[in-house]
């Protein structure tokens, strides 16, 4: 059967046998999907539906046992969030984190990838390993370490600064420096993933293009901007979308490094605010805020697709 050419083969199988094979495949398909489907429907699909419901109710911890015996409040949760001074602060902090952290992560990752791709031959996998190591570690653990590194008195960072005559600030205790400290840690921990994906993308940039441009007298910098970057467009899009989705939900860093919010809430993030409201028992309110974050994530993702997709 498998020896005959493709189109006649289908025709050669009697209709009854073919449909019997289809039925058999369909039965096997659903049978093999049962465990996944059960777990998926209960623990993913159902919570998605219920979260929509919760966001429009006044559900609290007291309704835990009967989550549907609650009152509809319409858009009140959303109105409350937008009027909430603390939520606005959290939203502003989150945008600060993303607007500074995302470009920094991209630039550091691309610089490392280009350097490893072009200049470093033999030791490439060694460097790659080292730069990637922070990605796989627990944020809680590295936050503990960074908090010690940034300690105003016993920390390594201020010690190194003192060698050049600078008296370092109390990084995590300062309303000015707490957020940049968290951003530095996020860049350190996340650029490795982007670097690996950029490296894979760079291998796909055809050498003939580079060669032609070099013949035309373009220098390395010009070639980078007019060939490498445009060729990497899809990679840049993928990395900025995935990194941004992660950064818009940053939570562990302020939770562990600045004891949940930092001085004068200067590191309170939107996710941390959601968690706070959840732990106060305000389930409806917390769900509504998580949807606000989701809407922002979706909107910015669409925007990025628009901006980076268009070609001249």
């Amino acid at each position, binding site marked *: 059967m498998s020896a005959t050419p493709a189109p006649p083969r289908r025709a050669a199988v009697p209709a009854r046998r073919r449909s019997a094979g289809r039925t058999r495949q369909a039965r*096997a398909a659903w049978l093999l999907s049962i465990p*996944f489907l059960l777990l998926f429907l209960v623990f993913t699909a159902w919570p998605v539906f219920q979260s929509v419901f919760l966001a429009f109710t006044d559900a609290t911890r007291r309704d835990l046992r009967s989550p549907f015996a609650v009152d509809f409040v319409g858009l009140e949760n959303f109105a409350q969030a937008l009027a909430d001074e603390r939520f606005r602060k959290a939203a502003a902090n989150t945008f600060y984190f993303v607007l500074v952290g995302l470009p920094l992560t991209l630039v550091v990752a691309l610089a490392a990838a280009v350097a490893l791709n072009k*200049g470093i031959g033999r030791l490439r996998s060694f460097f790659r390993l080292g730069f990637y190591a922070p990605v*796989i570690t*627990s944020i809680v653990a590295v936050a503990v370490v960074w908090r*010690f590194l940034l300690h105003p008195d016993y920390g390594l960072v201020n010690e190194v600064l003192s060698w050049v005559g600078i008296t370092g600030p109390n990084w995590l205790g300062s309303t000015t420096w707490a957020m940049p400290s968290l951003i530095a840690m996020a860049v350190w921990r996340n650029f490795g993933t982007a670097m690996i994906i950029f490296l894979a993308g760079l291998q796909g940039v055809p050498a003939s293009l580079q060669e032609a441009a*070099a013949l035309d007298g373009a220098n*390395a910098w010009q070639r980078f901007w007019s060939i490498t970057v445009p060729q990497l467009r899809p990679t840049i899009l993928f*990395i900025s979308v995935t990194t941004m989705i992660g950064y818009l939900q940053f939570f562990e860093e302020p939770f562990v490094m600045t004891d949940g919010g930092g001085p004068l809430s200067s590191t309170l993030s939107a996710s941390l605010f959601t968690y706070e409201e959840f732990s106060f028992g305000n389930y409806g309110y917390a769900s509504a805020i*998580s949807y606000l974050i989701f809407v922002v994530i979706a909107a910015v993702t669409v925007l990025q697709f628009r901006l980076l997709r268009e070609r001249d």
Partner: protein
Amino acid sequence: MAGSWNAEPTLRRRWWLYLIMSVALLLVVTPFVWMVLGSVKSNGELRSVPPTWLPEQVTWENYSQLLSGLNFGTYFLNSTIVAVVVTAGNLLFCSMVGYVLGMLEFRGKNALFAVIMGTLMIPGLVTFVPLFVLVVNAGLANNLLGLIVPFLVSPFGVFLMRQFVLRLPPDLVQAARVDGAGEIRIFAQVILPLLGPALATLGILTFLSSWNNFLWPLVVAQREEMYTLPVALALYSTGQNVTDYGFLLAGATLVVVPVLVIFMIFQRRFIEGIATTGIK
């Protein structure tokens, strides 16, 4: 010098690049070095100004305090059990559905795939509250099952396995069908052995994300015996132990080092997996 950019860069021409990259690498790994060195220093030494690099006197007191005084052995075991079971579940169930979506023909296939892909875009934060309500009401919050069952399958795992199954030649399956093998036997005996690299990638990714997971176990682990390592470390680091640096650095080392060792062993496969998910 046409085409000279393409010449294999010599060490002499590129020495400055190696220098910059070496300094950068040093910066990147310093926190880990500082963590491990600090974990064997006494608290007195950790508070000295200026700080010492190498420990003046190596002490294991921080570790013994962790393991005897604070049940870190239990937390370590919890983290391991959760990560291993979650990984096993994902490998089995996601590869089954990956095979179904990548190789079988049946009505409803496209709809199934669309639903799974749709939920891939929804951040975990959104389902967090209802999932918590569900798990508490199902009585899963009192034991480790509450940390395991919601994560036994993942849409991402299905997507990854499907992508790998699509690359396998369909003739293999056709031939096995002609030989009279049932679809489930084909999956177990023909497909699964060929998915080795894909299973390795998914396995490592799942293990790491489970091991490092924080928000969910923080909320669900209501009794101390259920804590995982990150939860225990976070709670101790914000409580009265906040200035007990040696103890916290030893705890961080216990969380980070096993993962670094696994990474060193599997790094090639792992990095290929990351690059693949990025491009596809």
